[in-house]
């Protein structure tokens, strides 16, 4: 999957939780949760959505690595490659 | 003075008692005038000064079981009937120790024990009551008399004619006493009555009716005794027109524009007390010492009555509705 595919997957996971989330003004290196006002429940649902979409298991301890868009893409790319 | 044969038992004690009662009324009324000026007595105040002989004379003919219905000028009748001056004065003050509980005031003196069915302030309003009281006595087989006092002004009211007719029609034991003091409030009699001889009106209802000199206590007593004897014998009602004169205004707020001072002075010499005192002195029944003693006793009695009224209490507002209906606090 290309970086673009992974970014889209993250966007899809988030919009399932926060339909009105606007990605165009999103700063990829800044906190997703702050910019999109996602609380811990939202974030858990995003993780679950990614797990279901990509079949990748994300332990709690890795959550911080998903806090930004670029971070998430990099993390997922690594997990899928492994 | 009349010296007719049916004059009452003229013992000295009886004569002095008559004088004493008239003097009590005179001084009581003068004290009331003073207290009214000092704002101790309020509202309306109608004084009996000058008409004392009528009340004193008539009451002599009544027994304790007889009933009295009077008008708003009833202090003299109440005192003559034997109601104590203290409760009457307290009633003038509006104190609850008054003979009507302080609720009636000067115009509404009531006393069940003396069968004194009030001062009635509606001119002529008392006449039908007297007829009813007599009707009740007659229907319950009680040989009692009801005396009804009113002024000549009442003769112009419909109730006067209705009551006299009912009493005569049903032959009821009512003694109608008309105190004709020549002025119905501010109007001289001649200005208000086509027929100024009130007793003639009464006679037309087919009842015993006569006129008497209201300034002569002996004459009034004799006439009253004669009339009451007829009532007790079942002759039906009797009417007594007493020609008298009130020395003071109709009520406390009256500039007496309707009569001149000379007329008042003229009647003052012919007043009941002056004449009776003179007659008692001339006939040797009254000596200065007697008069001084009577005056002193009355003075003390009046002061005691005022003290009784001053010491009286106000009815608490919480009892405002008591007696509107029997028993309950009223609703």
């Amino acid at each position: 999957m290309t970086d673009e595919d992974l970014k889209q997957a993250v966007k899809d996971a988030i919009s399932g939780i926060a339909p009105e989330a606007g990605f165009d003004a999103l700063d990829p290196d800044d906190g997703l949760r702050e910019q999109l006002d996602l609380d811990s429940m939202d974030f858990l649902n995003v993780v679950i959505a990614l797990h279901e979409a990509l079949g990748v298991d994300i332990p709690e301890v890795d959550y911080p690595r998903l806090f930004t868009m670029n971070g998430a893409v990099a993390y997922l790319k690594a997990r899928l490659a492994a | 003075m009349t010296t007719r044969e049916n004059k009452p038992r003229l013992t000295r004690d009886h004569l002095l008692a008559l004088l004493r009662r008239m003097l009590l009324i005179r001084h009581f009324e003068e004290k009331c005038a003073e207290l009214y000026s000092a704002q101790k007595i309020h509202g309306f105040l109608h004084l009996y000064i000058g008409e004392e002989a009528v009340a004193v004379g008539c009451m002599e003919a009544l027994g304790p079981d007889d009933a009295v219905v009077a008008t708003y000028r009833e202090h003299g009748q109440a005192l003559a009937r034997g109601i104590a001056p203290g409760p009457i004065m307290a009633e003038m003050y509006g104190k609850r120790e008054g003979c009507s509980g302080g609720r009636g005031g000067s115009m509404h003196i009531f006393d069940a024990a003396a069968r004194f069915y009030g001062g009635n302030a509606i001119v002529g309003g008392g006449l039908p009551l007297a007829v009813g009281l007599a009707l009740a006595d007659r229907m319950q087989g009680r040989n009692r008399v009801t005396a009804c006092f009113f002024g000549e002004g009442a003769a112009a009211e419909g109730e006067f004619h209705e009551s006299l007719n009912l009493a005569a029609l049903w032959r009821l034991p009512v003694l109608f006493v008309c105190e004709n003091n020549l002025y119905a409030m501010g109007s001289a009699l001649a200005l208000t009555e086509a027929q100024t001889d009130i007793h003639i009106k009464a006679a037309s209802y087919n009842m015993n009716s006569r006129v008497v000199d209201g300034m002569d206590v002996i004459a009034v007593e004799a006439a009253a005794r004669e009339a009451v004897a007829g009532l007790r014998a079942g002759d039906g009602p009797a009417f007594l027109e007493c020609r008298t004169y009130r020395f003071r205004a109709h009520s406390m707020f009256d500039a007496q524009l309707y009569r001149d001072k000379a007329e008042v002075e003229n009647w003052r010499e012919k007043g009941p007390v002056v004449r009776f005192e003179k007659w008692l002195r001339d006939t040797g029944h009254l000596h200065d010492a007697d008069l001084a003693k009577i005056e002193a006793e009355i003075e003390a009695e009046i002061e005691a009555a005022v003290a009784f009224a001053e010491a009286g209490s106000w009815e608490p507002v919480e009892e405002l509705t008591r007696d509107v209906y029997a028993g309950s606090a009223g609703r």
Partner: protein
Amino acid sequence: MSATKHMTYREAVREAIRDALGRDPRVFLMGEDVGHYGGCFAVSMGLLDEFGPERIRDTPLSESGFVGAGIGAAMGGMRPIVEIMTVNFSLLALDQIVNNAATLRHMSGGQFGVPLVIRMSTGGGKQVAAQHSHSLEGWYAHIPGIKVLAPATLEDARGMLWSALEDPDPVLIFEHVLLYNMEGDLAEDAGPVDIDRAAIRRAGKDISLITYGGSLLKTLAAADVLAGQGIEAEVIDLRTLRPLDEATIIESVRRTRRAVIVDEGWRSGSLSAEISARIMEGAFYELDAPVARVCSAEVPLPYPRHLEQAALPQPADIVAAAKALVGGDG
């Protein structure tokens, strides 16, 4: 069901008078034409022969005189029943009723009471024109010191008199002229009834129709019409106009939340105005619509039938007033 007798309202009143005369020697009837003539509404027909002229006393045309005499006789220990031919003539005796009967107990500091009953006819509808058609019971209900009753049924016509006679204070009984000929069945053993409570003649949940005396039948008729349109109206017969049975009125209005008051008096300053004020004071937060009133038109009652009927409250007026309050689909 105990045995009943078919009779008119007039006969029920006569029965009440006869019963009272029999029970208590202090009772006597006094009024114009009550004796030889048998009463202008034939209520006291036959009583003179049965009880004699002492206890069935015709009087001259002297309302103030004989009402005052009645008051005096009551104070003297009798239990008089004074009949004033109609409320219209009672105006001549207002002074005696207001200044003596209603006042003496209180003004004498409780020394003298007036255990008197005054009966009089009232109301219009018989084309006898303005001076004979007044409905002024509301005036008398204004006066503290007396009680005012309005018997609208045979039971009350038969039962109220004795309770009124037993009352130590003056009681006025108003008999509506249209009721005298009303017929019905009365229990053989019908006797005295209470005189201080209203009665719910028909239960209902949507609206309270409050009335008395001659207007009760019209109000019950209106309730029937409303029932046909799905509106369950409660009909309250006041029975006593003073004291007003406020508890029954308020309890009902709290439940139904709407009220129409039917009163043959003129609207301004009428008894219906007093009842409306008491509802506003006692059930304001329960009201779901303003209180309505159906009264006579404010006009001297006219002689011609069509005008008289137009002036008097009618069932149609009551139905319209009720529907306006219930509104919409009811």
